[in-house]
């Protein structure tokens, strides 16, 4: 049994949160540079230039890329042969999150659903983190992290279709979602699509799909092809960067699919903005 200290997890979580807030990961940066090269609309091109400049300023001056530093979302795989000593894994992630948001001067964005009062004084700074845990083989802890902003989360949606809807139904649904969203989610976007499973499985899969590196291939050839088809359809919408009109509305479509019930076809669309702050560490 390998032991990992509680404090080590706190420190690592704190560090990735602070770093991610001002450093756009390489996959996202490259995708934005490609979009800049390919964009046909001069207005969108100009805005893309501003966003690349913003990424430069953020990393060189250690300023947050965006004022919406998000809710902290984690997908954590803990090896069956690891023991966390000194406290609970979940507490360590929350403590690291709070430290990261406080020490990095990041915005606390959690609030009560109805009073809208900032939770800062009652449960801590930008807590609780959203944590999805899984147990796997091995003696390591694998942590995937993303800062999830509200603008893109607000246009996300899910629905359980009858099986007859098929691939066509999925394509139409994603198209409708991105078309209705227009400028609001800060395009150019990454679009996560969860297909199959149960209702909540589809939703969680669509979220996890956003953690994949932009430009990476889907391991399932059928889904890889479908990603290409949907991407092409979405870029016909003409929304462009920040909705100014243009050819580069979506940087990538990522699908995660699961077997589902014979009676249903759940589909979820989770949207990530151009500020795709995500990272991955293994302890």
């Amino acid at each position, binding site marked *: 049994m390998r032991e990992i200290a509680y404090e080590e997890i706190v420190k690592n979580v704190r560090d990735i949160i602070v770093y991610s807030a001002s450093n756009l990961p390489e996959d996202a940066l490259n995708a934005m540079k490609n979009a800049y090269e390919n964009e046909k609309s001069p207005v969108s091109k100009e805005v893309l230039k501003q966003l690349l400049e913003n990424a430069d300023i953020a990393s060189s*001056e250690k300023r947050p890329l965006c004022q919406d530093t998000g809710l902290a979302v984690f997908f954590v795989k803990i090896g069956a042969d690891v023991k966390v000593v000194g406290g609970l894994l979940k507490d360590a992630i929350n403590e690291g999150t709070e430290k990261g948001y406080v020490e990095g001067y990041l915005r606390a964005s959690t609030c009560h659903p109805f009073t809208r009062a900032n939770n800062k004084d009652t449960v801590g700074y930008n807590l609780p983190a959203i944590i999805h845990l899984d147990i796997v083989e091995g003696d390591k802890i694998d942590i995937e992290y993303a800062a999830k902003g509200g603008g893109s989360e607000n246009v996300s949606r899910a629905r359980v279709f009858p099986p007859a809807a098929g691939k066509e139904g999925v394509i139409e649904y994603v198209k409708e979602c991105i078309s209705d969203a227009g400028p609001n989610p800060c395009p150019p976007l990454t679009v996560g699509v969860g297909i199959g499973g149960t209702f909540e499985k589809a939703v969680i899969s669509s979220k996890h799909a956003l953690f994949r590196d932009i430009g990476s291939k889907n391991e399932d050839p059928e889904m890889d092809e479908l990603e290409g088809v949907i991407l092409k359809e979405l870029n016909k919408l003409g929304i462009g960067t920040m909705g100014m009109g243009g050819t580069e509305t979506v940087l990538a479509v990522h699908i995660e699919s699961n077997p589902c019930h014979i009676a249903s076809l759940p589909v979820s669309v989770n949207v990530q903005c151009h500020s795709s702050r995500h990272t991955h560490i293994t302890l």
Partner: protein
Amino acid sequence: MSTTYNLTTPLSDEDVNKLKSGDIVYLSGTIFTARDAAHKRLVDLLDAGKELPFDIKGAIIYFVGPTPPKPGDPIGSAGPTTSYRMDSYSPRLIAEGLKGMIGKGKRNKDVTDACQEHKAVYFGATGGAGALLGKQIVSAEVIAYEELGPEAVRKLEVVDFPVTVVNDTYGADLYKIGRAQYEVK
């Protein structure tokens, strides 16, 4: 077709009437910040017949909830938030003399109608460019609702703050015009 202007607040009818959807404007002077929670309070004040915490005539409101400033900085990162959440409040403020709003994303018909009727414009700033936009803000001071944290009302001094006219006083909408140009049916 797009013209670039430098404007200083407060804005007059003449200032806003010359602006067309798609024009680029560099704003300087004082602007005020407010998000949903602050808007609700501002409108509640008007309903109660009380005075607003700042002079709304000719003013610009920026929909933003900045990150906390690092020591020595006036403000942290400060890009726009999505504007539709203010749609139910903006027409009332426009009727009171508000001349400009800065945010990102679509507005509803009530807002664009009010822009036409009372001569006001809706500017888009680049969402997610918080580091870059924060640098154009030279001073920031909380003037109301401190307990709202990032949502408090702040008075900002800005220099050459870059925005694009989305909805002008003539009913044009840049999001519609831009998209129609590149949409493949």
